[in-house]
């Protein structure tokens, strides 16, 4: 029998893997040519790629950027590349891109949406990236009012007075909560609402008559194209996240009324197609409002889109909350953190991190769903494309316009997707 005892006299150092397991040759072999079946699939894939490139390549190569109509485009292509050849007619985009992007916004005022976009990027800075100075956050908070004023115009005092409502709410909270905590919360909700309903308008009129500062006022019927999609989409995204988080917390609450309300809200709005909510926004809402109130149609649509997305976000966040071990709540409790501090410092940072893919997925869906507003006769980019194609000069063109609209949406959605991946990487601290 063999002797069972064995003693190692020296420990082995780590060695680098053999050359056949690394490098490009290994990669090609492992990923493209690992078996006969895979070799066949690789060749087939190369052939398909070739076919696609062989069709689209020449079409793009023969593209025309400068022409007045589709006929003119075709004539130029035939003159350059011979009869029967087809090519892309991007001239339509060169001529009409402003309409697709800005809708019916007056041309001399294009600087306003453009400036809004630039300011929006500044405002997003401190929210999206940690290296942007924190002081910029103050600008981010006021940005919605600034954007509203720049886009719709009118007196500057209206948005200022709307913001003043929030300040009043805060002051009311500080003053009243000295006496009673719950009364403070109620005051924080009631005071601003009363202000907005009864005093906000007159106050801004008075201030306007004292110190008139105003931009040319534009109606919501002048919004269209990608500008409209962006206004609805971004507002929906910005407002639905906090509402969704509160709904998710409410759904987990021990307070019966809060819980019931949140469950009904989430299930109710999630169970209805967005398009019906949009019809409610455009047609029915006016019946419920006091007669004579004009309630901007874009604002109504934003409210509906926000509610719809918030219901989805709530469920996504609930999934993140459910994934946290109970020990995290217990550790927070045992250290003496109260409910809101525990949520803010311990629970939400982790739950939201888990929910990032779901949240961004919902945002991307929301952004693309803004094209549905064409059904309530708002001019989303597709609607504008249709009207361009109805034109005699461009009758019969379709690929080029759809590609352009698709590209605009793709840029937004793809950036969101990349940002979410960056964020996930940045927040990855579990080192699993």
């Amino acid at each position: 029998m063999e002797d069972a005892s064995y003693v190692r006299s020296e420990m082995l150092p780590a060695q680098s893997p053999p050359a056949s397991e690394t490098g490009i040759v290994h990669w090609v072999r492992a990923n493209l040519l690992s078996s006969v079946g895979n070799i066949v699939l690789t060749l087939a894939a190369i052939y398909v790629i070739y076919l696609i490139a062989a069709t689209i390549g020449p079409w793009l190569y023969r593209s025309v950027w400068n022409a007045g109509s589709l006929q003119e485009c075709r004539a130029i292509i035939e003159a350059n590349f011979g009869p029967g050849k087809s090519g892309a007619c991007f001239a339509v985009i060169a001529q009409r891109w402003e309409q697709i992007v800005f809708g019916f916004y007056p041309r001399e005022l294009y600087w306003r949406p453009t400036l809004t976009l630039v300011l929006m990027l500044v405002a997003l800075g401190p929210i999206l990236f940690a290296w942007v100075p924190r002081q910029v956050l103050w600008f981010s908070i006021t940005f919605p009012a600034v954007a509203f004023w720049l886009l719709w115009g009118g007196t500057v005092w209206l948005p200022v007075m709307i913001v003043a409502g929030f300040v009043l709410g805060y002051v009311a909270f500080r003053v009243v909560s000295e006496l009673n905590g719950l009364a403070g919360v109620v005051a924080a909700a009631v005071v601003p609402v009363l202000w907005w309903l009864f005093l906000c308008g007159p106050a801004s009129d008075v201030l306007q008559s004292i110190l008139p500062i105003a931009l040319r006022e534009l109606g919501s019927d002048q919004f269209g194209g990608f500008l409209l999609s962006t206004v609805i989409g971004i507002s929906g995204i910005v407002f639905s996240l906090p509402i969704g988080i509160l709904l998710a917390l409410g759904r987990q609450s021990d307070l019966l009324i809060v819980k019931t309300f949140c469950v009904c809200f989430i299930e109710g709005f999630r169970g209805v197609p967005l398009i019906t909510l949009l019809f409610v926004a455009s047609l029915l809402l006016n019946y419920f409002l006091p007669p004579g109130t004009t309630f901007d149609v874009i604002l109504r649509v934003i409210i509906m889109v926000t509610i719809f997305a918030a219901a989805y976000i709530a469920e996504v966040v609930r999934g993140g909350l459910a994934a946290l071990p109970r020990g995290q709540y217990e550790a927070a409790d045992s250290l003496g953190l109260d409910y809101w501090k525990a949520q803010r410092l311990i629970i939400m940072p982790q739950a939201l991190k888990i929910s990032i893919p779901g949240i961004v997925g919902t945002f991307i869906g929301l952004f693309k769903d803004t094209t549905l507003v064409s059904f309530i006769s708002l001019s989303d980019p597709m609607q504008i494309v249709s009207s361009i194609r109805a034109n005699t000069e461009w009758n019969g063109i379709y690929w080029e316009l759809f590609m352009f609209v698709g590209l605009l949406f793709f840029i937004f959605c793809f950036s969101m997707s990349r940002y979410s991946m960056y964020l996930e990487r940045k927040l990855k601290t579990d080192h699993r």
Partner: protein
Amino acid sequence: MAEAALDHTIDRSRMKVTDEVAIQISGMNKWYGTFHVLRDINMSVMKGERIVICGPSGSGKSTLIRCINRLEEHQQGTIIVDGTELTSDLKNIDIVRSEVGMVFQHFNLFPHLTILENLTLAPIWVRKVPKKEADETAMYFLQKVKIPEQAHKYPGQLSGGQQQRVAIARSLCMKPRIMLFDEPTSALDPEMIKEVLDTMISLAEEGMTMICVTHEMGFAQAVANRVIFMDQGQIVEQNAPREFFNNPKSDRTKLFLSQILGH
């Protein structure tokens, strides 16, 4: 297992049981639904006492210490911690929780924060300590549990034993008067149990009032001044460790001891 803590020479100069009551539990009952999990618990813990609670699983020992900082709610009887009675009054609960530190079986560190941030979070947000001071306190306690070099790592990068020592330091940063340990070594590899027990022993040497749910009988013999044995939600026997281990009175205790020490 038992030897791990015994090779340590223990400095008993500051381990003094006073006659000041730290925790008073009387006539306490608790149910989970209809299941009677804690039955007529009466115990008082003096300041400076080091109590080990043991018993078979499901005997209610974890539930008992979790009632002391109200992670679990009791339905009958009274629990008074450091003069504050635990009721549904949130203010009292907050007072008790800031006096009582707790260490869990699964550490429950916050994985999204660095070790230092784990330690300073509660002092900054609950005690309103300035950040610089909180950092200094945190480093002092990390020094104490012998891992100051890990301050800027994340919990996921540490071994189980290190994580548990961080968890102990995190509780100590709140300057608690009482420490609760809920099976602090049960989730650890044998090699790491000793480092955690050593930390707990040095805490005992400083005169901390401690209640430990643990099966480390060596630890119990070395530092505890009282061992409580629980079964079926009731306190079956309690005694000084020497008496408890050498001369158990109840048959249930004898059976339990023969099973955990017999092999």
